[in-house]
């Protein structure tokens, strides 16, 4: 294994995170604060409790997931797309580094950033609502798994994108709606039966449900199903990346 190579990519990507700290960290934190003000205070004052949890506390896992998912995708996709755009990706192709090591470097950095952002949002949320995490190790495991899975997904988007528009397309048109409709701000049991069934086709439901279970011990779907869906997504992303590199699709002439 080329450990210095992986480390170089990882540190390079993390350097971008520190360089653009206001954009990387403060922006998602500010968004979360705004969500708390709008949803937690304005709407939450009328909803009171969901599944025995105050509304303000109920939306915390969903808000963290919202940022983790979008940040994982945008960081990983930008990380690999920008060298493509600049042309400096030639360095990766001509270096004695395997595709797996490249993925570990970029996805590892993107996931690290997401985990940091997730934890900062959690800390921010604790300033607004009293939080008690019932299954802390499970919460960390969900956070890490989700960050890695969606960073892999972002990496695929970055590899396949031909321009900045395509880079933004999936996060904007697919991920954000899925997160909003995935039970971030409500329990799916609050929906009519038909929409509950439709919602079950949204993979984000399982992420948020599992993550919320780690906080409050209650979930919309079973814990096993949530874990199975995350692993399925993770394996699918790994498979797509493996195929992309093996065939040289969108990478090599």
């Amino acid at each position: 294994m080329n450990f210095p190579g992986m480390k170089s990519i990882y540190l390079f990507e993390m350097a971008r995170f520190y360089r653009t700290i206001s954009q990387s960290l403060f922006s998602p934190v500010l968004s979360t604060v705004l969500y708390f003000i709008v949803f937690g205070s304005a709407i939450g004052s009328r909803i009171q409790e969901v599944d025995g949890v105050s509304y303000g506390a109920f939306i915390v896992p969903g808000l963290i997931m919202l940022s983790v998912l979008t940040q994982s995708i945008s960081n990983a996709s930008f990380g690999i797309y920008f060298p493509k755009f600049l042309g400096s990706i030639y360095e990766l192709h001509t270096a004695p580094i395997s595709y797996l090591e490249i993925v570990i470097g970029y996805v590892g950095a993107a996931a690290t950033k997401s985990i940091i952002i997730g934890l900062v949002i959690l800390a921010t949320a604790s300033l607004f609502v009293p939080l008690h995490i019932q299954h802390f190790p499970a919460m960390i495991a969900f956070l890490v798994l989700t960050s890695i899975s969606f960073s892999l997904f972002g990496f695929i988007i970055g590899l396949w994108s031909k321009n900045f528009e395509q880079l933004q397309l999936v996060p904007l048109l697919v991920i954000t709606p899925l997160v909003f409709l995935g039970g971030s701000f409500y329990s799916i049991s609050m929906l009519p039966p038909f929409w509950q069934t439709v919602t079950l086709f949204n993979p984000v439901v399982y992420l948020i449900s599992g993550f919320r279970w780690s906080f409050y011990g209650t979930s919309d779907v079973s814990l096993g199903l949530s874990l199975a869906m995350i692993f399925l997504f993770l394996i699918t992303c790994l498979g797509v990346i493996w195929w992309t590199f093996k065939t040289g699709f969108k990478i090599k002439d």
Partner: protein
Amino acid sequence: MSSIISVQDLSKEYDNGFKALKNINLEIEQGEVIALLGPNGAGKTTLISIICGLVSPTSGQVLVGGNNVIKDYRKARSMIGLVPQEIALEPFQSVMNGMKFTRGLFGKRPDAELMKDILMRLSLWDKRDAKTMELSGGMKRRVLIAKALCHEPAVLFLDEPTAGVDVELRKDMWAVIEQLKAEGVTIILTTHYIEEAEAIADRVGIIRKGDLLLVEQKETLMQRMGQRQMVIELSEPIIAIPKNLKPFNLEYSSEDLTLTYSYEASGERTGIASLFTELSNAKIILRDVQTHQSSLEDIFVDLIGDKS
């Protein structure tokens, strides 16, 4: 000398049917400087892109230091440094951090002394902490060279290294190449500047439409294919070329008052002695005589012209 790069039956055909390379065979010896000449789109960049790992070949194989560039890519690529044609640098990264990044990709830990040495040699030491976006075009090109050298490659590829740079920088780069050659680095450069190949290459390969037309020692090529011209300046104008001089196919310029005689430099008998005898017989008074060797450019134009 032993081959450090062996290109065997290498072909590249793109999905649209365009054949960029047609059955190329090339042996490159350790420590030599070889220039690949050819017009735009000839296949020069495709060839070095395959050797460096940027493009996959359709058929054939390439060995670098005996290592297959696909099967043993780690060993093969460890030996190679590439300076690309386009300036492709992370704009917000400092020169030094960029070098550390590249060295890391090659599996090597930072070496402050080596980095300093490379940057000093390329007159970039003062700019080591500058972001690459703050540098001039010429400096950016030097940064690309610095990055290519920072993992101590045995083979350096320079793809059009002096395209669009000023004369001074071009000469600086040639000096750097000379120095690297003296250190034993094998250098392969693509260029369409004939004078560049003429100035720094040991051997010259000419590529056209995916075919490697020839690979020759530069001197051999110029000797074998080059023509010499002798320009004879006359003291007085002549009305016509005298009959006894007709066999020499002289060209007369009434404006410059010169007679031009072309002959094969490598020929056993150049005919110069006979020409002077006949000039004397024709009572033509000479003012000056100059000889001129065909340049690589003349040869290149002739060759490309012949093949087309």
